[in-house]
Structures are given as structure tokens and as C-alpha cells.
């Protein structure tokens, strides 16, 4: 891999197709959580090669779970979390990609390039409805902070592996947002989707 491809993702990225959902015609305003800055509309690149805006294309009007991870995570935390969410994906069955979407966002986007994420997703045999996402470091830091996955101790905050324990889940249309531990059981995580529908 060429170093340049890891840097300045916006500059060096190849011209990929942009199949983001068009929501220009959406009548409903952005949810209050989005307006309050909890769901910043940052640009992201998926392991599939698609480009998205975080809020408009991935969150808006949807039921989602998203977490942060990095491929080089300490103590194997992230692969274990990914394996866990992979099991949740099976439990959710056909809902995945239809009315439930997963997003795993790299905290180390300069390393976790699209190609790395693609290999990673393939290694976990990830099914449709789940995207691994990379982007600009500063954007992803903004997103992490907006989710409160921050440690007040600056030293602990620098250790990215300290921010991979919780996943945010919610339904943007109903403006319901909770959090669940990715270290919990798959059944426990899957059950959270039972209270996001009505």
C-alpha cells in the first residue's frame, strides 16, 4: 500500500460512485438530536467503496446501531466486539439492511483505509446492512466527541481502545437514542431493537 493512500483521504481517494440515498425530497426536518449536533453530517467512505454523509445518508429516518473501533485494537477488544455484532446481525435476520443498519466507524482512519476495512469485513463474513467506515481523522474525532465516548482523563482519552466499549443505538424518526455495551451478549444487544419500533 502506498502511504499516500492513507493520508488526506479526501484528496487521494479514487473517484468512486456515490450511491448515497437522496433525501432532498424529505419533508421532515432533521431530528432534534441532529440539529443539536449529536449526529454530525460528516463525509465517510465505506468498505464497499461507497461515500456517504453520516447523518443524511446513514442515520436519517432509520433504526441503527453504530460503534467505534479500530483494526489495531488493544487486547483484541475490537475483533471481539465485531464478532459479537456479527452474531447480532444473524439474530436480526432479514431486518438487517431493511429497517436496521449497523455502522462501525474507525477511530484510526489514517490506517484503516477502505481496503483494510474491506478485508476486515470479509474476514468477519459481514452481511449486507452493515458498513465499516473511514474518513478524515478530524471528522471522526468530532463524531466520537459528539457521542460522548470521551474520557475526562487526557491520558486515558488518548488510548483509542478506551472508546470501543459502547455502541449507540436508536431510531432517528422517533428520536430515541440509547447505548448498549458491545461486550454484552448478542441476545441482549439484539433485544434493544424491540423498543425502537413504536
Amino acid at each position, binding site marked *: 500500500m502506498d502511504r499516500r493512500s492513507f493520508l488526506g483521504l479526501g484528496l487521494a481517494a479514487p473517484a468512486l460512485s456515490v450511491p448515497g440515498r437522496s433525501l432532498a425530497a424529505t419533508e421532515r426536518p432533521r*431530528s432534534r438530536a441532529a440539529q443539536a449536533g449529536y449526529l454530525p453530517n460528516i463525509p465517510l467512505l465505506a468498505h464497499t467503496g461507497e461515500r456517504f454523509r453520516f447523518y443524511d445518508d446513514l442515520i436519517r429516518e432509520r433504526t441503527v446501531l453504530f460503534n467505534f473501533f479500530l483494526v489495531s485494537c488493544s487486547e483484541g477488544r475490537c475483533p471481539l466486539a465485531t464478532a459479537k455484532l456479527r452474531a447480532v446481525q444473524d439474530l436480526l435476520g432479514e431486518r438487517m439492511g431493511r429497517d436496521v443498519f449497523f455502522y462501525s466507524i474507525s477511530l484510526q482512519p489514517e490506517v484503516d483505509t477502505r481496503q483494510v476495512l474491506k478485508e476486515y469485513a470479509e474476514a468477519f463474513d459481514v452481511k449486507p446492512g452493515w458498513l465499516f467506515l473511514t474518513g478524515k481523522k478530524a471528522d471522526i474525532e468530532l463524531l466520537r466527541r459528539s457521542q460522548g465516548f470521551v474520557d475526562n482523563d487526557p491520558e486515558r482519552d488518548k488510548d483509542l481502545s*478506551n472508546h470501543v466499549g459502547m455502541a449507540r443505538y436508536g431510531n432517528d424518526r422517533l428520536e430515541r437514542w440509547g447505548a448498549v455495551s458491545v461486550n454484552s*451478549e448478542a441476545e441482549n444487544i439484539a433485544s434493544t431493537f424491540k423498543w425502537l419500533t413504536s
Partner: protein
Amino acid sequence: MNSHEKLIQRTMDLQREITREGLTRRDLLKMGMLSLSSGLLLPIPGLSLRAARADAICPEPGKDLFSPPTRPWTVELPRLVEKQVVPGNDPSSCDVGYGGALPGPGVPVGTMTGGDSKFRCCEEFPELHNATPYAELDHQAWGKGGRLGNFAPQKFYEMRAKQFNHVWHPDLPAGNSGQPAWGFDSVVPGPMFRTRYGEPHFVRIHNDLPAQNLGFGINQISTHMHNLHSPSESDGNPLFVNYSGHYYDYHYPNVYAGVNQYGGIGNPNEALGTLWYHDHKLDFTSQNVYAGLAGMNCIYDAHGIYADPNMGDYGDETKGWRLPCGDNYEFDVGLVFHDRQFDPNGVDFFPLTCLDGAIGDKMTVNGKIQPFMPVKRRKYRFRMLNMGPSRSYDWFLSNGASFVVIANDGNLLPAPVVVKNFKQTVAERFDVIMDFSLYPAGTQIVLVNRAEQKSGRGPTGNLISPGFQVLKFVVTSDAFGVDESRIPAKLRPLPDIKQPISRSRSWEFKRNGGEWTVNGLPYNRNVISAEIPEGSAERWTIINGGGSWQHPVHIHYEEHRMLTYNRRTLPPIEGGRKDVIRLDANATAEIYMRFRDFKGIYPMHCHNVVHEDHAMMVMWKIV
């Protein structure tokens, strides 16, 4: 081994290799990053595992975020609405609700029907009725026979959780039209229940909340009665959901702990007094309580429960300990303290993703910002509740007067304790007597909080001066008849704790990898962390595992006695029966717990409700 198991294996192997070689992060940094997908080191020099320091999205009130100004002492303190029984106290007048099979004639209240949310909840989460049969969910202590199964309700209540407009202060831009809130019976806080031992009561709570929330909150609730001696199905467990459009029937047998031991209605020395009810929905407690779903409940002694006529808390200032009460509870007053944050436009602000906790720069009492209370020249009993979500107080009076504290966590102490100030963390209750006959009419006394707190982590430990003014008492010359109340020299004796301990357990509350955990694990609805035989006694060690967070730890069901706190014995004000442990940074508390009478699941959790919602909870079971 499939592909992702291989990947995990490789990750772990690499981790072990790094450890074996003694490589530090600095070494890795020099070497470049590992690509775990290829198993090779990537030739990327200069990249760090660490990110730049980032500020949390936890605005510090008064620094990062300011509520609009409001004039203090312009709004009179509202009294909590006194809850009344259903018309004629006739259970058949309870609304049967919306969905499901209607309980027609011959299907009395207390028979679970399709309208009862317990049904839907058990359909969606079958493990609930697998663990607890429907017959028991349909009230262990009502119509079941035996010593514990026969406490049929004598009082019937109905309550509705609804959305309505609430005025926190008329100076806010919303003015007198207010802004949306959620609450019971369309008030914030909800109504005050006056209940009595020996008079079991029933509450049907209808959930009329809309699907569209306030920007936070969920229209699924579970109303916890903190900390009544209630059977599990009426405890308001986070798992027992009352869905919108349904109702949930709660049965409170109103027995003292120790029915199995003492017979009758238990041991009166185990009496509770000042309780509160609040939403406890799993993952959403902080949002729903902040929306307004909380209220108070007090419980008085059964008439004549003590042979000694000078003992007993009867809600009558001419009997027993003669605590201030007056007619219609005029001088027995609930005070609910709750801090809120508004944005510069005066719109309710909730820090949806701040994991430390939520604090605000506006102090409300009974739903109003900085109210005043006209008081008569006599004694009052104030039942002070810290509704949270995350602020801890240190209370003082502006004139330097002392508080006469008679109860901690609602439980009367063996004797009143006179203090200049006291600390009160989330969910704690303190009953205090204040005697305004000492002051001439026109005297103004302000209740002041001097605890410095800059974030949801907890108080800094510093006292601020002059402190934050919260509630102003204005002494009036209004007539009140005769003050027949007393400040007795002695109050409720403490029950002995001689029953041998059958087991010790320890529970560490700690932040771990960005999660709030107990004994290293986040809450998992499929795990029961302790199975405890009914009737046993245990010693629990509760540990704050580090960081600078305060964790107000709450254990449902029977209250505890603290044996030591940081290996020291306790001041008298903390020495009674409690249900919240104010676990300051790095503190350790040893407590004595008993598990008597009813069976079923109960949680223990951090009552900084933001921590609770981020998995700082365990479930245990009396078997």
C-alpha cells in the same frame, strides 16, 4: 475455525507477542501500525494509537452553556398534588384501558388481562414469565393464600403518564404557556401518595405517552417504587415494560420487612417513611426521569402498631412521636429538588450523549425554579428528595441555623440529629424539622446548596461561598391553630443485625473501556449476578473502582445498614437504614443486607441515572 475466529485468534496472538517482546506503544509507534487483516506491520511511520485530546460534549453549566435569566422568588412553591383514590375507592371504576381483552364482569381488578402491559412484555421477552410464572406476575401477595399471599388492596388509585406543557419559570421565553414535559397525572413532579402500613394499595398506571418524544425519552416506562418492600412484579424493575397504550397494575402490600419472621405485617422497626416513584426503563431512565416521570410517596405506621402510645409515625401530630403534620398534611411537605439546563433560547436541554451525567444551572423545587414558600410560625416536617439526574448537594441555611434531621432515605433515625449542613446525593431523601416559631413574621431564610459541582462526575468536594440559593422560606403571621407537634428525643429504634451472615459478596463500580461496569461487566438482561435464599443475611462490600466519579449506589428492596465507610464507622446521620450509598471517588462501603419475604428479581445500580443507563447495573434474585 471459521474466518473471523481466525482473525480473533490472530489478534490475540499478536497481542501476546507484543506483550512477550515487551514492546511498548512507543515501539509500535516507531515501527508503524499492525494490520491485523494481513497480520503484517504496515509501513506507516509516525501514526499513533492515540488521538488528540478532545473535549467532551458535556457542557459545564454556567461556563459552556447558560440558561436565560429568571428572577428568583417570584414563583410560589407549589405543593405536591395530594393523590386521591378512584371514585368511591371502587376498583371497578378503574379504566380498563385500550388494548387486549377487556376485563368484563366477573374479571375483577387484580386479574391480569390483555390490557395489562405485563402480558405484552412477557410476549416480547419470554424469559420474564419463564422465570416468574404468570400467576406470580399477577401479584404474589394478593389472593394467593398463605402468610405472604393475602394482602388484598384496600385503597385503589389510578394514574396516567402523559405529555403536557409545564412552566418551569414564567420568565423563560416560553412564558406562561410553558414547554412540553412528561409526567404522572400531568404534573411535574407527580402527585404525592399518602399510604399506610396495614393498608395495601393498588395503582393502575396508564401509559398515555406519545411515540414522538421531547427529543429525548421513550414512551415505554417502568415505574419503580423506590424503595418499598414490594414483590418483584410491582417493584418497577427495568425489565418490566409498561408500553404506550397499555396499563400496568402495581400492588403494594404495605407490610414491614420481616413478615416471615414476625408474622402479621412484619416488624414496625423496619418501617420506611419517605419514598419516591420514578421511571426505571432500561437504558432510558435518565431521559425519562428528566422528562418529569417522578413523584413522591410517603407511608405512615399502621394505627396502634406500637404498644407504647408515645411511639409511631401516624401522620397525626397528636399521636405517637407527634411529628409535624397538621390537618390535610399541611405541615408535612414534600420537596423535590431537581436541576435543569436550558439552552440560551430557554428550550429544555438534555445532554443526550454525555456519559458522565447531566447537571443544570437552574435549580427547581417541586417543578419551579427558585420558588419561595410562605411558612407559618410553627414546626414543619420537610421530606427532601434529590430527584437527580446527577447533582449532589450540601445543604445550609442562610441564617446559620441548624437542621433537625429525623430521617435518612425516608427511614426515621433512632434519635434526631442536629447538623449545620448535610450532603444529599441523587435519590437520597432526608426528612428535617424546621421550627419557624423561632422567627418573627417577615423573616426570610434561604436554603442554600454549597457543594461545588462542575460536571456529572460528582461534586468536587469544595464548598462554594455564598453558595447557590434554591428555596426561600418567608415567615408569615398567618394563623395555624395550635402546633401540637414535637421534636421527640427518641425516634424509631434500629432493628438488631444479629442474624448471622451467610455469605459475603463484593461489587466494584468502575468505568472500564468507556463503559460503566459492575465487577467488570456491563449490565446484561440475561444474567442474574446473585441468587440469594429468602430469609438470609449477607455482607456486601461496595467499591468505587477509581476515577474521580461519585457513584450513588442504590439497591432495590430491603434497605441496608452501613457497617463501615472507608473502614471508618459512621456519623449518626448515616447510621440508620439506607437504600442509597453515596460512594465517593475511591470509597469502599461495607453493608449488611437482609432478603426477606418476597421472591423475584431486583436490581442494584448506580443512581447517577446516566451511569445506570450505560450499563452500571446488576440484577440479583431472591429464591
